[in-house]
């Protein structure tokens, strides 16, 4: 209180006051519990995990060589493990891309007010309540060999024998779309609602058609949001695990990285290899995220004049 009226930054000010000028005061103590949780449950285990990856089991060292780096050697050399990177990407990238691209027109149309909008939005939130496990169970019954889809197609004479929709790549893809699309849609809608509608009205007044309005007004403003949504949807699809096991072909075409990590952790009890796969998963994801965000800054700068 005595410091009131002093000029900020004067040498005569007390240390406490000078710290407060820079934003450091007792209020920051409120951060402490949060930081303790983050460090104890995230930073420490994560560093511990990194340490584990360079302490491979004797069996691993013997089989793959490479000394302390045996786990990494195994990761890149063992086709059974390394192929899972490609198998994961083959699922996660198209799923994320589809979810984002399909959300844009739907969100554009649902932007207007109309009757039943709330019902429709609620319907789109529904899959969040289903969770991956029930989605998997439902897909197995609904899209299985004797499910309603195949039954209908057979009755209509569109197919001669049941389509194979589950227990393969397609099944996992369907489940990723059902769980991921609402997520992408809700995010894109929130970004779209942040765009000032008067901008589009102004463009319309100046004679722009709907494609020009979309291409010149909405898309540039939406681009950062699209990139963020893609990243978040990709993260969601990338760590797919229950559905890859339940509606996929767990040892074949949907042998994703998280399955391999769980296998090493739970079935082989090789914690060091499990940590290695888990970390490589994070690394692969990081590469994609950085690439997309880099692309975003390129796109963003190109269309709005260097703000990105």
């Amino acid at each position: 209180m005595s410091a009131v009226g002093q000029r900020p930054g004067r040498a005569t000010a007390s240390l406490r006051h000078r710290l407060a000028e820079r934003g450091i005061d007792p209020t920051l103590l409120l951060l402490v519990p949060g930081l303790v949780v983050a460090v104890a449950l995230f930073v420490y285990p994560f560093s511990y995990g990194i340490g584990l990856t360079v302490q491979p089991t004797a069996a691993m060292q013997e089989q793959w060589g490479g000394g302390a780096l045996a786990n990494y050697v195994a990761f890149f050399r063992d086709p059974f493990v390394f192929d899972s990177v490609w198998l994961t990407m083959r699922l996660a990238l198209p799923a994320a891309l589809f979810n984002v691209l399909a959300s844009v027109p739907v969100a554009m149309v649902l932007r207007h007010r109309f009757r039943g909008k709330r019902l429709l939005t609620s319907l789109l939130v529904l899959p969040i309540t289903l969770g991956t496990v029930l989605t998997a169970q439902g897909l197995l019954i609904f899209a299985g060999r004797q499910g309603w889809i195949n039954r209908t197609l057979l009755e209509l004479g569109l197919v001669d024998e049941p389509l194979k929709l589950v227990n393969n790549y397609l099944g996992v893809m369907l489940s990723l779309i059902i769980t991921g699309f609402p997520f992408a849609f809700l995010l894109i809608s929130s970004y779209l609602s942040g765009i000032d509608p008067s901008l589009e009205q102004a463009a319309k007044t100046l004679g722009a058609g709907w494609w020009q309005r979309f291409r010149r007004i909405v898309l540039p403003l939406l681009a950062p949001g699209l990139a963020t949504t893609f990243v978040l949807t990709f993260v969601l699809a990338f760590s797919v695990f229950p559905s890859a096991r339940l509606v996929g072909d767990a040892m074949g075409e949907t042998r994703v990285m998280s399955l391999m990590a769980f296998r090493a952790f739970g079935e082989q009890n090789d914690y060091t290899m499990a940590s290695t796969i888990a970390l490589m998963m994070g690394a692969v994801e990081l590469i994609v995220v950085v690439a997309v965000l880099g692309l975003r800054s390129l796109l963003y700068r190109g269309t709005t004049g260097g703000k990105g």
Partner: protein
Amino acid sequence: MAASTLERPLAARPSTWFVWAGMTAFGVFLLGILVAVVVDSFGRQWFDTWLPDGFTTERYVAAWDRFDLGEVVGVTVGVAVLVVVISVLVGVPAAYALARRDFPGKRAVMLLFLLPVLMPPVTYGIPLATVMYSFGLGRTLTAVVLVNLVPSVPFVILTMTPFIEQINPAIESAARMCGARTRQVFTRILAPLLVPGILAAAILVLVRTVGLFELTFLVSGPGSDTLVVAIYRGMTAAGGGEARQLISAMSVIYTATMLAMLVVALRFVNPTQLVAQVKETRDD
């Protein structure tokens, strides 16, 4: 009349029809999945026919006994409530500090809270589970609560920070001018203003915790399985898994619980808020 003028341009464009066709396909799949599971859970026998050859509720009784669902549901609710309480108590003060103060290293702190949200759960989950097992906490309730805090605390911080930022700090200053002490500022001024935000964040954490599979699955065991994990274990049990109808019954119980929570949640929050929490933090 106002509605018809709004709807006419919608119906006119072929692109709109395309969107509606896609939405219909999505809706058919969604409802098909849901209805199929519900029908299956009430069915007696269901093989090569349109509908089961009889309906019964005994699957629920059987599933309840077979999987000890009383305990599982108790664990699920208990874990979820504990996680919500702890993450609100830890997260809201941190969000307040982040919203109100600008200090050196703030970006680093924000990044630290953003990382668990952006990283695949498996990446930090496996090292975390290894640590839990090495501390002898494996398969305990404590471990389940602790791992669930990792995404929940940052989630509360990330949702609450923009919420607190939009509360005018002049209100707090005015209260102080009128002689309120720090404690009074918190209880009389901030708490009432924060209640809607806290409620929204709490419900979202509740829904996410009940639905979280990967992290819980890594550290839980008999006696500390939540409902999702129990369903998964039922589906993948050795020897081809349990009877399908039992799993369906369990899934219906799970979805009914989630649906009830979500209906409550939607009374307090906008659906877009369910997932849009990261948007605000991106801009800092």
